[in-house]
């Protein structure tokens, strides 16, 4: 297991470095003059030249890249070209917001999805299963901007239960921000819920058919013990992996949901950076997202290994 972890960790670092190259190339090595693109057609040549100097665009590409990477790794993420603020502070603050939304969403859809999946598997082919399967199929197919708008229309506007707009000040403490988080979290959950439920249902049905479950039943163990100990421990393995891999998306990929509600998370910051052509900001956000994605994959692998003795004890 230790060597396995070391290997995986090394692999993650390689992935991040490879991704940083792609990000760097995509943002700086675009055809045309970067400074010109950033400042727009009507900037003076002097302004463009100043910016080139500031960004160090006159140096050779590999020097630029290494310089940028080392600065990034040492925590110097640069200054936003738009508002002249430290990029790092901005990104980390938004990251905190994204984490709050992700945590709440996970807390909603993981237990609910697993519950629905297991209930469906236990009532396989019955009306309960068909209802759950139909529902999860529909949810998987619905994009967030549809569920989001429907939720806003009913919950926020018709019934006035929760605010429709979550564009709170990024500094709002959690206690006050909570009610603004609920609708976005439900929107995110609805999309993932169906996925988790279907996944859990399929693997639970498989495990229920396994010889060792039959053997456990015929050992005369109480039904609850058979289900919790012998079935779920095995059938939730794939679900746990999928959940862990989804963390990356929950933190860095909720662009649509954040936009629908105007919630100040990482996704919206990325969109903002792109709209303002703030390359420094875009690079920083992208790197953070890549890192989170990579580590959520690592977490998925580790969890799978910890829960699955075949991997854990392989060395």
């Amino acid at each position, binding site marked *: 297991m230790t060597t396995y972890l070391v290997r995986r960790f090394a692999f993650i670092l390689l992935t991040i470095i490879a991704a940083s190259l792609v990000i760097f190339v995509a943002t700086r090595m675009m055809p045309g003059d970067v400074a010109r693109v950033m400042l727009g057609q009507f900037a003076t040549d002097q302004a463009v030249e100043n910016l080139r100097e500031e960004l160090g665009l006159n140096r050779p590409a590999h020097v630029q890249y290494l310089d940028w990477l080392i600065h990034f790794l040492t925590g110097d993420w640069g200054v936003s070209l738009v508002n002249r603020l430290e990029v790092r502070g901005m990104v980390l603050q938004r990251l905190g917001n994204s984490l709050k939304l992700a945590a709440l969403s996970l807390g909603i859809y993981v237990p609910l999805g697993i519950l629905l999946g297991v209930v469906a598997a236990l009532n396989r082919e019955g009306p309960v299963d068909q209802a759950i399967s139909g529902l999860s199929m529909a949810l998987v197919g619905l994009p967030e901007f549809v569920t989001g708008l429907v939720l806003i229309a009913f919950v926020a506007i018709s019934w006035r239960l929760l605010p429709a707009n979550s564009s709170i000040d990024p500094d709002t403490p959690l206690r006050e921000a909570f009610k603004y988080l609920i609708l976005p979290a439900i929107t995110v959950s609805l999309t993932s819920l169906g996925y988790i439920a279907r996944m859990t249902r399929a693997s639970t049905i498989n495990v229920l058919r396994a010889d060792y479950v*039959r053997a456990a039943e015929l050992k*005369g163990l109480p039904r609850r013990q058979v289900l919790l100990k012998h079935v779920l421990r095995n059938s939730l393995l794939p679900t746990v992996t999928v959940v862990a891999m989804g963390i990356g998306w929950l933190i860095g990929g909720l662009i649509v949901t954040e936009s629908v509600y105007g919630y100040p998370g990482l996704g919206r910051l990325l969109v903002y950076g792109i709209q303002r052509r703030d390359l420094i900001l875009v690079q920083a956000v992208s790197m953070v997202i890549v890192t989170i994605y990579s580590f959520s994959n690592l977490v998925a692998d580790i969890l799978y290994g910890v829960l699955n003795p075949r991997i854990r004890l392989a060395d």
Partner: protein
Amino acid sequence: MMSNGVAPPSQSTEPVLQVTDLSVVYNTEKGPLPAVRHVSLRIGQGEIYGLVGESGSGKTTVARAVVRYLPANGAVSGGSVLLNKLDLMGLSPVQMRRVWGSQITMVHQDPSAAVNPSIPIGEQIAEVARVHLGMDRRQAREKALQMLNQVGMSDPEAVAGRYAHQLSGGMLQRVLIATALTTNPQLLIMDEPTTALDVTTEAVILDLVHDLLEQYQTAVLYITHNLGVVARIATRVGVLYAGELMEEGAVPDVFKRKLHPYTLGLLGCVPRVDISKHDVELNTIPGSIPPLDGLPSGCIFAPRCPMAEDACRLEHPTQVEAEPGHLTACRRWQAVPRLPDLFAAPQSEIERGETPEGSLVLDARNVAKHFKLRGMGVAALWRRGPSELRAVDDISIRVRKGHTMGIVGESGCGKTTFARCVAGLVEASCGEMILEGEPLAYSVAHRPLSVLRKIQMVFQNPDASLNPQLSVGACIGRPLIMLGDTPRNQVGQRVRDLLRAVNLPEAYADRLPHELSGGEKQRVAIARALAANPTLMICDEPISSLDVSVQASLMNLLVRLQGAQGTSYLFISHDLAAVRHVSDWIAVVYLGRLWEVGPAEEVFSPPFHPYTEALLSALPIPDPDVRQKRIRLLGSVPSAVHIPPGCRFHTRCPHKIGAVCETEEPAWQNVARYHSICCHIPVDELCDLQRHLLRVERPAPGGKEGER
């Protein structure tokens, strides 16, 4: 039914399990299928009742009905099941759950699937002790260790902490037996407990079961398809056919004096290690098991029975106690013992293969296949230790014209990899393969069509080796067109000829594989191989997935075809008796190397290589009179990644003579002109050691007296 007088000895005490008139129905789309009908059986304390039958006979259904664990569409439609006078059919599901695991326990077929992969072994035993014996965690753990010790685990403490994937099949089956005996149950049901294991492991497990049951005095319902296993372990035997008991009695009685034609036919289907294809053809039972939705109205075996009369077809026979404790469902049972050859195949003159000097078809020299072990991408950089799996490591074999070379060995010994090297499906790493004087390219891709035609293969699983979309005719016709020189307008005729050659109706040409039974599919696979008119046919476990009676007819077919066409076979099987039956030559393989090779009758008589000896000693023989010396191999085949130094067999060899075995590779010794053994022990000493391996103890004359 059983009212005529003297109670047989085994039934003098109160039975632990009494099944009376049990019937089970499965509700399917086609309507109700009566899978088990009016089955009655009694098992007393300390008795092992062997329930034998071919696939579809309903033996597992009987077991599942006894514990009331039928699939959702199955139901007991009649009869009673009493466990020490407790009516199991009258219990509520909750009460039944209390019987499971405490009064009735089960051991299942595939041990690697029946142990939960993510719970430590010890805990899986301890949980039973906690639930049924009311023990606390510490006591239950102690109990688990004690049970592991009972089933012969040398280090229970370590085993208890391991997971399923860390133990071999044999070890896992011990664990399941330990679990089943934890609560000291009244009835133990074992459903094909050794079928998934190698013959050597099977022998060890059977010994263990036998010894433990003497100690525990549990009543056992032992379900198996293997008549040899029944002969070795059971006290009584019931023969099940299409859901009805055909014959039942004490094991020696039934094996010696068969009173039902089905039993007679079934026992004659099993090949024996002391008889070869040149001596006798195996029995075959014509026809196949009747479908449950179209059972004959009279005796269900009548359509396949050569001695059936009109009365048999009209009237359903009742079970009679023909002799004390020996029951039969045949109305003409008196006639059965007088007709030993009822199912004997018509004896055709089978020519012996050419003399050993006959022309050489395949000359494989020092063939090896080493698989490189690779990690995933970058991860491979961190890998340590040996990186090669030496599946085949220097095997030399010669196959002569019209002869069969049989290759035997436990699973993982490399026999299939070797066959695939010869076929070119796996590229050999080194060595030379010469087919009729021409060197063979390693890869099938580099062999010209004319060479491809000469080597054909029959695979183990016909379901996987026949294209499900292709009709039988098209399947056999393709090699005719692609490899042969058959003109297109004659393909149809050739296909019909080939179907006739493998004893299938010509009309089968239009069928699809799924419309055929397992045995018929394998006949098609053989016809397809024959279509190319090969010089060498590689049969890789061709009969292993089939029922006993079907195996017999396929072996007869292979032997007959060889006599007619002079094809050479490379016949690979883990079933020693089958290999002995069809082979002229036998090669014994272990861990990628050859250890003994020679003419079949010489290899299977002393002196043996110690490994051959162990294989023969382990083989269950369906004859309770045969006494086998107990030679058991412990553990399982070592990994081909970490091959032991010196003689590769030294880690398990019962005759290991000392340090020389661990350090030096043994040399080949000639026993006879064509018979050689690779061992450090001199041939003379092996002869002395192995004098009494198989002994037939038959009280009356007529039996084969003698030793091998």
